[in-house]
Every structure is written in structure tokens, then in C-alpha cells.
């Protein structure tokens, strides 16, 4: 029994074991060299693919297989689990031919981190590359090299319950002052104006990025270039300060869910569906989940750009893509690029976006006529979109500082200044 208990006592070594197993796997080699597409287009073989969901993909897989003779072998996992799995596969040289990747540097398996490691194929010679929106360049390009295919775009918007708005008699606001008036009326009618589930710490990013798109990217367009050059900081940015002050003002004045730190994200969304709350600010990719909470169906779900200033023309919206990337050592590189070419057709790009409740990411895509796209299109047309703030940061640890110190700010144990300093410290550490 003694020995057994001691082994149990050392069971935490399993963590180190897992890490070491990763190390042990790292010496493996991927298949050498990438194929070039056959001239006759008859490719054959099996294309391995890993992404978060079959939704969208299933529209094209069968036709692509019939057209090219390529069998598509897809595996699907939730984004966090997929990132961890891919990180291990990339390290051990067993990554699939095509896989999903996050924009910029947000995670270890994000596009630009992988590009720096030299494990992604440069796709700049692909036909569709000319239709990648300019605003995505900082998230997927290094010089002239294009490392990712944007499957669809998602925007952070204010989603609202139309029935509640009609019941209270308010319209979607276009300026900060109008927003405050709407929130006051909703509050007076006994509704929770903005559902906020900060118990899931990532949720604090949504309202923050919705505000900073206008107050930082819109009002201080050179901020990130200056930050990278070491010429400014979060603490010196009037836009970032105003972002957090407005966030706290909304919370402190009772315009959000009471005790937001005790409310998880899903129940907060449910409260909008049930009509207890009116608005929730979140990425559009989650809007199909939100729509599922509406008894009246998705037609009762509306959306608008979250205003942060008093000039509607200043409003910017966070808009970032979801990516597929091609393994530089893909066993079937020709099939991989053929697949991207196939799905990049304007009608397929639109169909994928429509099926996933998203926004087409390529500029030549057929228009999608639904409420979500009608909310976003004017901002795309006028160039008033910016990447999600964390996608422009050099590491995921900066968003972690926002989530951790942001929760402390909401609970009262940290100030706006503390949060700005925490962001600066994390940025500096990530930039070393």
C-alpha cells in the first residue's frame, strides 16, 4: 500500500510526462516535398483536413470528390481542443494537409506563428489570393507571402431581441448618446439592457473589442504601428482608456447583467432569447447558437454595429476571418490547393458563409442577403472594419492579461490604469 500511495503522490508527474512525450515526438519527419497539381486535374488520393465543424464543408465535399477523384478525410473538434491537437501534430510532423488556423498570432497554432516556423505553404500564387480583403493582410501575410485562405468572416456586433425592442418601442441606435437613451428605456421597462456573462473570462473581449474598434482603430489608426515601434503604449492611448471607462460605465450604471462575473456566457445569451435581456455583444459566428435560444426563431434576432462615439460615420466594427492553411509538407499538396480553389468560387464562398451564419470573406463573393450581412455590408463597403484587437497582438498572453485583469477591474480589485499597465506589460513580454 505504501508504494501505491507514493505513486499516487507522484501522479502529478503526468503533466510533465505529457510535455515530455511531446518532446519525444518532435523528432518525427513529415513527408518530404510537396506535390504540384497535375496538368489534367485528375488528382486522386486522400486529402486530410482538420477543422472545427463540418458545417459549410459538407456543401462541397461530395462534388469536389466526384470532380477531382480526391477523397476528403475530415476530422472535427472544438477550436481549443483542435488548436492543442494541431500543435502536437505540427511539432511531430503529422499535421493534416489542410487545417484550420486562427488569425495573426492569437494562439501557438495561429497563422503567423506557424508561418514563422516555416510549416505553412505560401499561397500567394493562388487565383483567390487577389480577393483577400486588404484589412486581413496583417493577419495572414508576411511581406508578399499569403499563408491562409479566409473561409468566412465574422464580426463583433450587438445582437438584439426584436420582440423586446418592439415591446419597449426602441430602434437600434447609431451613436453612443442614442445607445444610452435606448438602454435607459430598456432598463425602465424592467429589461436587462445588455446581457454580459463574464464568468467565462473570454466574454470580456467582445464588448471591449466592439468599443475599441471605433475608439482605437478608428480614432487612432496609427496606434498599433506606433505601439510596435515602441512610440506609444496602452496606458498612453486615449482610445484604450475611453474603451475601458465606457465598459465600466455600462456595468457600474446597471446597464448590464447584475453580477456579470457570476453569469456564464451561455445563460447570458439565453436571457436575450427569453426576452429577459435585450442585447448581447458577441461575434457573429456564435449567432446561430443565439438564434437557437429564440422561441420565435432566428427572424426575431436582429443585429447592429455597437456605437462608441457620437458620429455614426466614425463607427468601426471588428471583423476577422476564420482560416484554412496548407501544410508545407502536405502529402497531397496538389489536392489541398485544388480544394481551396474549388471552395473559393464566388457562389461557394457565399454558400459557406450563409450555411455557417457568417459573412463571405473574399471580396468577389456573391452577396448574401440576410440581416447579419445587411448589418455588416456598409462597413465593409466603406472600409470601416478592423481585425479583432487580439488578432493584431503579438501573442495570446496579451488577451489573457485583458481577461484576468479585466475581471479584477469589474470586481473592483483593479482599476482602468491597472488594466492598461497589465496590457503594456504583457505586450512588452510578448515582444521580447
Amino acid at each position, binding site marked *: *500500500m*505504501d508504494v501505491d*500511495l*507514493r505513486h*499516487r*503522490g*507522484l*501522479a*502529478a*508527474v503526468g*503533466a*510533465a*510526462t*505529457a*510535455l*515530455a*512525450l*511531446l*518532446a*519525444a515526438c*518532435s523528432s518525427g519527419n513529415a513527408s518530404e516535398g510537396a506535390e504540384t497539381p497535375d496538368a489534367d486535374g485528375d488528382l486522386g488520393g486522400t486529402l486530410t483536413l482538420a477543422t472545427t465543424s463540418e458545417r459549410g464543408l459538407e456543401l462541397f465535399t461530395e462534388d469536389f470528390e466526384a470532380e477531382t477523384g480526391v477523397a476528403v478525410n475530415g476530422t472535427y473538434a472544438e477550436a*481549443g481542443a483542435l*488548436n*492543442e491537437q494541431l*500543435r502536437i501534430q*505540427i*511539432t511531430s510532423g503529422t499535421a493534416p494537409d489542410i487545417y484550420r488556423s486562427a488569425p495573426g498570432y492569437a*494562439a*501557438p*497554432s495561429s497563422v503567423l*506563428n506557424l508561418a514563422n*516556423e516555416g*510549416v505553412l505553404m505560401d499561397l500567394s500564387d493562388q487565383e483567390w489570393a487577389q480577393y483577400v480583403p486588404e484589412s486581413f493582410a496583417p493577419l495572414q501575410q508576411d511581406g508578399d507571402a499569403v499563408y491562409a485562405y479566409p473561409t468566412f468572416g465574422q464580426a463583433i456586433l450587438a445582437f438584439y431581441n426584436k420582440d423586446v425592442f418592439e415591446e419597449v418601442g426602441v430602434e437600434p441606435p447609431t451613436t453612443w448618446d442614442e445607445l444610452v437613451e435606448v438602454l435607459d428605456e430598456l432598463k425602465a421597462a424592467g429589461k436587462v439592457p445588455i446581457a454580459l456573462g*463574464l*464568468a*467565462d*473570462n473570454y466574454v470580456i473581449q467582445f464588448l471591449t473589442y466592439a468599443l475599441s474598434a471605433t475608439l482605437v482603430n478608428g480614432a487612432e489608426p496609427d496606434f498599433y504601428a506606433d505601439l510596435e515601434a515602441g512610440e506609444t503604449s496602452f496606458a498612453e492611448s486615449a482610445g484604450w482608456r475611453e474603451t475601458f471607462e465606457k465598459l465600466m460605465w455600462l456595468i457600474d450604471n446597471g446597464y448590464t*447583467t*447584475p*453580477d*456579470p*462575473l*457570476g*453569469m*456564464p456566457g451561455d*445563460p447570458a445569451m439565453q436571457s436575450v432569447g427569453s426576452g429577459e435581456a435585450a442585447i448581447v455583444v458577441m461575434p457573429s459566428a456564435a449567432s446561430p447558437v443565439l438564434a437557437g435560444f429564440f422561441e420565435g426563431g432566428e427572424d426575431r434576432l436582429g443585429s447592429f454595429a455597437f456605437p462608441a462615439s457620437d458620429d455614426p460615420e466614425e463607427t468601426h466594427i471588428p471583423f476577422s476571418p476564420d482560416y484554412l492553411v496548407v501544410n508545407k509538407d502536405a502529402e497531397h499538396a496538389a489536392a489541398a490547393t485544388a480544394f481551396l480553389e474549388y471552395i473559393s468560387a464566388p457562389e461557394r464562398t457565399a454558400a459557406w458563409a450563409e450555411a455557417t451564419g457568417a459573412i463571405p470573406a473574399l471580396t468577389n463573393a456573391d452577396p448574401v442577403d440576410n440581416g447579419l450581412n445587411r448589418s455588416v455590408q456598409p462597413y465593409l463597403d466603406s472600409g470601416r472594419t478592423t481585425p479583432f484587437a487580439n488578432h493584431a497582438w503579438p*501573442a*495570446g*498572453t496579451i488577451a*489573457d492579461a485583458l*481577461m*484576468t*485583469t479585466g*475581471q*479584477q477591474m*469589474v*470586481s473592483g*480589485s*483593479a482599476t482602468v490604469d491597472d488594466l492598461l499597465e497589465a496590457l503594456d506589460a504583457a505586450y512588452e513580454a510578448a515582444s521580447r
Partner: protein
Amino acid sequence: MRQVPQWFLLPALAVYGVVVLYPSLAGALYAFTDWRGSAEASWVGLDNFRQMLGDQTATASLTNTLTIAVVLTIVQTGLGLLLALALNSAIRGRNLLRTVFFAPMMLPPVITGLLWQYIYTPGGPLDSAMSAIGLEGLRQSWLGNERLALWSIIASVIWHHVGMSMVIFLAGLQGIPEELYEAAAIDGAGTVRKFWSVTRPLLGQAVTIATALTMTSSLKLFDQVFVMTGGGPGVSTQTLSLVMYKEAFVYGNYGYGSAIALVLTMIVALIVFLQMSVTRRGEVDA
């Protein structure tokens, strides 16, 4: 008795060496590097450990982990003993009650985490129950308050695991010969005296097992915290396991994550060694 040749152990030792010893030692070595998963790792000496000392999240997680371990070990073991004493007596329905108290142990930790997250939701079942019994004033943001969140998680873990401590003590109590209690009664011992002079010393082994298991599982606590708060609000419920997971598997800082894993392993080994040294002194054979 016929001796079995020692080389019979070799296959098992070889497997153990490959799947446990080598990865563990390699993992420990990575704690002294800046390995980030792909590029070659560079030796950084004690830098990762110095970084831990200046890392608000890591230091808070160490404090939280030790708090969880101490509180859980004392409270869960104590409650388990009380339950075992009660259910070892001749009360009606004791078999049913044993099953009821042990049943939560059958649930996966992630499920209990989700269950308690729901129970603690503002205006949720716990708040409603408190209002129903006239304790409206005590309604709280159980997981949203930095001062309460850790204790709320500890309470849910006790609910989940107390059945295990109870079963260990029940087994210990049932191993105590009835004659000893009869002899004590003849000597005039009352209930308290019987517990102190007969039950307590003869439960020594059960105490050793129950406290060791509780201590090790609580030092490694991950699932419930991950599900219920993710370490928040702020850093108020961060644990070493959670920080290790995030650094290694979310942010790709495998070197730093290995350093945290190494520290956690050392802490678990040291504490369990000390705890067993103390509790085994009190063991007495029946």
C-alpha cells in the same frame, strides 16, 4: 518459499522506464529550457523559475493550491469520518444513506463542475433555495466574487469527494473487532472514551489513506476549476495545474509549463511525504 528470479521484473521495468521514467525526466529537463513546441530549445537555467516568482498568476495559483489542499484535507476527511461513524451505527436506512453519500463520486468531475456552476448562477437554484427559507440577505455572486469563488469551488469538491473518505473510514471501522468495544465497556468506558481509546488509534491506517488521497487529488485539482471559473474572477481561483495547462497547451510555452509542472510535482511529493510520515506514526494494528 520458492524465489522468483529478479530478471522477471525486467519487462515491466522496461515498460515503466519508457512510458513513465523517461518522459518524466525529459519533461523535468524541459523546465530549464525555453522550448515553445517547435524550434530548438535553448537552455535557460533557472529563468523559468524566476519568472514564476514574478508572475502574479503563478504565485496566486500556488497560494490557492495550498489553501485548497489544506482545507479539503481537513474538512473532507473530517466530514467523511463523521459520516462513517454515523452510518456505521445501527440507524435505519443506513445502506441507502451510504449509497446516497457515495453517489456523487460516480459523476465525472466535469459534470459536477457544470452542475455546480449552474447551482451557483446568480438567481439560480442556490439563491432560490436561500430565498425560500428566508435567507434572501445571504444571496451572493458565488462564483463572481473574488473572495467567495475559491470557497464555493471547495464546497462543490467536498460534495463530490466526501463519499470516498466516508467509504475508507467505514472500511476501517468495520475492521475494528467488536470485542475491543466490549472490553472497554466492561472497564466503564463511555462513547467518547471508546472513540478516543479504541476507534481513533485503530483508524490510523484509514486516516493515512484518506488524507493522502485527498491531499494528492486536491493539489492536482483541475477539472472543476477549469469548468466553473477558468481560474477567475481575476486570479482568485487559479491553481498550479490550471496555470501549467494554459501556459503549455494554450500559449505554447512548454518550457515554462514544464517548470510549473516540476514545481507542482515537488510540492505534491514533499507534502505527501510529510503528511504520511506524521499520520503513519499514529497507526496501530488491531
